[in-house]
């Protein structure tokens, strides 16, 4: 082992070294923010424009679906929060629902993060939390035709017939637009069962991993807008003018992405040089 030169060593660094460096790299920017500017791309801008201005009128009902669980908060929650804030400010009424069984925690976090906006709104009149649903695509199809059978009661077990706002929501005709934020497939259920079937306006607040599969739907007009990953969240925070979690996280994202590319470059330099020596 002693005849290993520096290049060989570079190639065979103990993986734990990386893990430490990575974890520390992620933490440092939180303590010492750098604040690189975030450029807003068109798909995010379209999403924001679609939920503000003339596109949403006071009293319109909007569905916001939590297709993410607690474990994906850092990726999905910032964008979702900005959208909820924007919609509440436009005077829209929001139906919250979700496909993960820890959905209540995500909803509580949202209410906390947009405290000021929820403070002026009344539960059951301006927004309602229907809670968890199962049954996948058929449930979403059923929601379009007869919402009350999917949700006979809200999350807190109040019958929907006793909730004022629900009197105006029976099916797809009553909904102005749908926003879904997913780690899984619920967005695509809405795409097929609502957007394609009834022409409902739909946008996705997606995870980065699905960016390239979601993007063609945005180009084709199925999604009127698309936010991709925590970066999309940061862009939305720029658009609404309130830097939040995603903006803070962007420094860490920048640092870690740079780190992984640097590591790959170093490994390759080592590899090429040691091959040349041999």
């Amino acid at each position: 082992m002693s005849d290993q030169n520096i290049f060989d060593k570079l190639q065979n660094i103990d993986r734990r070294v990386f893990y430490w460096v990575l974890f520390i790299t992620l933490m440092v920017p939180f303590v010492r923010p750098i604040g690189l500017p975030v450029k807003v791309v068109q798909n995010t801008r379209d999403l924001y424009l679609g939920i503000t201005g003339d596109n949403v009128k006071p009293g319109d009902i909007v569905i916001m679906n939590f297709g993410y669980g607690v474990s994906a908060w850092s990726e999905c929650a910032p964008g979702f929060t900005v959208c909820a804030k924007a919609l509440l400010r436009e005077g829209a009424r929001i139906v919250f629902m979700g496909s993960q069984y820890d959905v209540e925690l995500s909803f509580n976090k949202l209410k906390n993060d947009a405290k000021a906006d929820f403070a002026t709104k009344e539960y059951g009149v301006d927004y309602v939390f229907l809670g968890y649903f199962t049954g996948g695509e058929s449930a979403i199809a059923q929601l379009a035709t007869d919402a009350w059978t999917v949700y006979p009661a809200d999350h807190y077990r109040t019958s929907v017939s006793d909730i004022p706002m629900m009197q105006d929501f029976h099916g797809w005709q009553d909904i102005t637009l749908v926003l879904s934020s997913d780690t899984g497939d619920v967005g695509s259920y809405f795409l097929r069962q609502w957007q394609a079937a009834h022409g409902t306006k739909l946008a996705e607040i997606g995870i980065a991993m699905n960016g390239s599969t979601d993007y063609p739907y945005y180009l084709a007009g199925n999604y009127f807008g698309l936010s991709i990953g925590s970066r999309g969240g940061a862009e939305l925070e720029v658009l609404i003018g309130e830097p939040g979690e995603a903006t803070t996280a962007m420094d860490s994202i920048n640092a870690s992405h740079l780190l992984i590319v640097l590591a790959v470059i170093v490994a390759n330099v080592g590899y090429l040089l040691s091959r040349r020596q041999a």
Partner: protein
Amino acid sequence: MAYPTAILDVIGLWTGWVLMLMIYSYPLYKENVAYRFAEHIFVAIFLAINLVVNFTYLMNTCVTPLLGGNLLMVVPLILGILIYTMLIPEYRWVSRYPIALLVGAGFGLGIRGAIKPSILDAIVSTITAPSAGGMMDWVNFLYIAVGLVSSMLYFLLTYEHTGLLQPPTRIGRLFIMIGLGAYFGNTVLFRFTMLTGRAQFFLQVLKIIPM
């Protein structure tokens, strides 16, 4: 969110923090007693929660309708219970019936659902030329078509990649590698964001940064 004040919430916060370090001691150090501790708690709690949630679900979708008069719901209940014959050696074969239903549903849905989006739509979008657009659109059009054809040839399973088939299958492999690289890169953002969230949590609990 603000830093909690109630004592139970503070304990909860620290519990989560300590358990996180126990799990990360595996990648950051090595398999050890702390990891083992967290691992077993995790596996146990996950199982318990899944059982409780599934039980709730079962009551809502099967038992309640059954008691409400939907007698057909007795079928999945019995079939489901038949899976447990696995535990009795001489009746083990009975468990194949419910599994047959699951497998049949899986194949039926899988096969019927795969042809249009995965095969037909993929080819349609490959051969639909850009209606207008510049040079780049046509280059992309050509790139995708050549890529799809050559990588399909790569997957021919009853031919060795030699002779006439050697060049196209070789090119097909290169297209596949580009696809894999791009997908790898795409996933990095998502994964790092998750880890960023944990790094933030680590600092927040220590009150180094605000919650």
